[in-house]
């Protein structure tokens, strides 16, 4: 096993890179961060682990991720066109499992969105399942556990 400090630094760098891509709408690059079987998940129930067997806010395989990005980029979605900016802070990164094939990490996120002049904040725990490859990590799974996942959210036209 690698030294924890080194792994933590690599994971933190990856998480920061991914967050920067999403805040700056680098969606095509973001798509390339994923393994083909990877799943992007935003559950409605914070205690649920059977994501396929339950209803989520989003459960995107590769096709759905591509379509989600297309929706945000192709100019056909009126809500995507009125999104201003998002700024997200990622911190409290902790490695939960450090295997040779997969690394599981968890961190805190505070995402701020400005839309129609209003500031909306989304605090969340984010769990990353990362696959180490020759070109760095790939996303095998990302689970965004919004603090108010089971409450009434405003509609979302960006990617957590």
């Amino acid at each position: 096993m690698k030294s924890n400090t080194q792994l933590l630094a690599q994971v933190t760098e990856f998480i920061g890179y991914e967050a920067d891509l999403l805040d700056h709408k680098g969606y095509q690059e973001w798509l390339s961060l994923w393994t083909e079987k990877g799943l992007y998940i935003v559950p409605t129930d914070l205690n649920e682990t059977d994501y396929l067997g339950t209803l989520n806010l989003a459960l995107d395989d590769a096709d759905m991720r591509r379509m989600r990005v297309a929706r945000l980029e192709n100019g056909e979605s009126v809500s995507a066109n009125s999104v201003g900016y998002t700024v997200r802070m990622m911190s409290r990164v902790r490695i939960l499992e450090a295997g040779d094939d997969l690394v599981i990490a968890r961190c805190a996120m505070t995402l701020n969105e400005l839309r129609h002049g209003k500031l909306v904040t989304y605090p969340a725990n984010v769990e990353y399942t990362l696959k180490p490859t020759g070109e760095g990590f790939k996303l095998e799974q990302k689970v965004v556990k919004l603090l108010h996942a089971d409450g009434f959210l405003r509609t979302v036209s960006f990617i957590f």
Partner: protein
Amino acid sequence: MSDLIEMKAVDAESVGLRAANMVDDENGRVKKALYSDPAIFEEEMDLVFNKTWVFVGHESEVPEAGSFKTAYIGRHPVILSRDRKMNIHVLQNRCRHRGATVCEGRKGKTKAFTCPYHGWGYGLDGSLRALPKPEEYDGVFDKNEMPLESLRWESYQGMVFATFNNEIEPLEQFLGGAKKWIDLFMKQGGGYPVKVLGEHRFNFPGNWKIQLENTTDAYHFPIVHKSFVTSLDEATADIFDFLDGEGFVEDLGNGHSVMVMIPQLVDLEADLDQPIPERFAELAQALRDEGKSEDEVKKLVRAAHGTGFNLNLFPNVSCSMAFFRVLRPVSVGETEIQHVALGGEGAPAAFNQKRMRLHEHFQGPMGFGTPDDGEAWERVQKGAMAGTDGWILVNRGMSKLRTSVDGNPQGAVCSETGMRGAYRQYKKVMSANSGTKAGE
């Protein structure tokens, strides 16, 4: 002084009438102040939500003895519960002692509802079972006199409606012409009883009637949901290109309406001898792998994608293609919405999973459809503030009405026939109890 008080009373009484008069039935238009006047909103809470049948949940949401879910009737928090004898109850969520809610959370299972303030404990049927130091109530009241207050409820096809109005007609009479469509809607269990699988929740800064209108508005679909249609395969996108098709909107009476967008998907148990389309091959194979016969596979595949219509029930629920849309008015300019995903009780896992994935695709705050609806509604609320007076038009297709096989007014799929039906009912209930009929 007494004159002043009297004038104020008359004034308060006339808010409902004022709102009713803002519905110009003859010309198919409504005053935009119906979206933004707080006094009218207050009156709606009483004259609409306290006086009619309001949807509170589906029986499958309280499947077992001890199951409960929380809901609202207008602004009143209520509990839908199932007691030990499997009887359903709709209870006001308010301790009889000092008024705290006795049940929090969306749903769950419990043996009792216990007030957190002084520990009064109620059964699932609302009866007051126990309270600390009861002797201080000796000679004051008997426990039997203090259950959680029960509401009248009735259900149709598992859909539970409750009301504060003990004088109202039976539910089935209120649903009237809508019942036929509820029966058709429930066929999407694919041979299994329809069951709630989960729900999406979101809110938007706008009036509840904007959402009420939307579920019977096909006109917006190709515009607002262009990005959703683009994300579909070609065959499915063709099905959603329905404005030039044979669909229709029919006014079912009592504010209810149905908008048929895809006529070939009205009856999901018809046309079962057709071959399974290529785009459903994966689901069909998964169902075969679960041991289903070819006949059942065909039935399930056809049911999996839901019906081709939206049934709009006044005032707060819609059976919308494949899910329930439930609205809750929060304030004059804020509305909460639930998109309730449905599947089949005991149905194959592949079927229910497919339905949840389809629900996630369009519905909820992160779906490919809802955020664009939300944007349009928010803009309606904002735009409705422009000008001191003005009209919202719901007169589309007014001159081209025909009579349906059931004897109801019917217009083109992109007509505003359903909205006019909802506003006619709104006008009726808002002018009730105010002494004179609206328009007089």
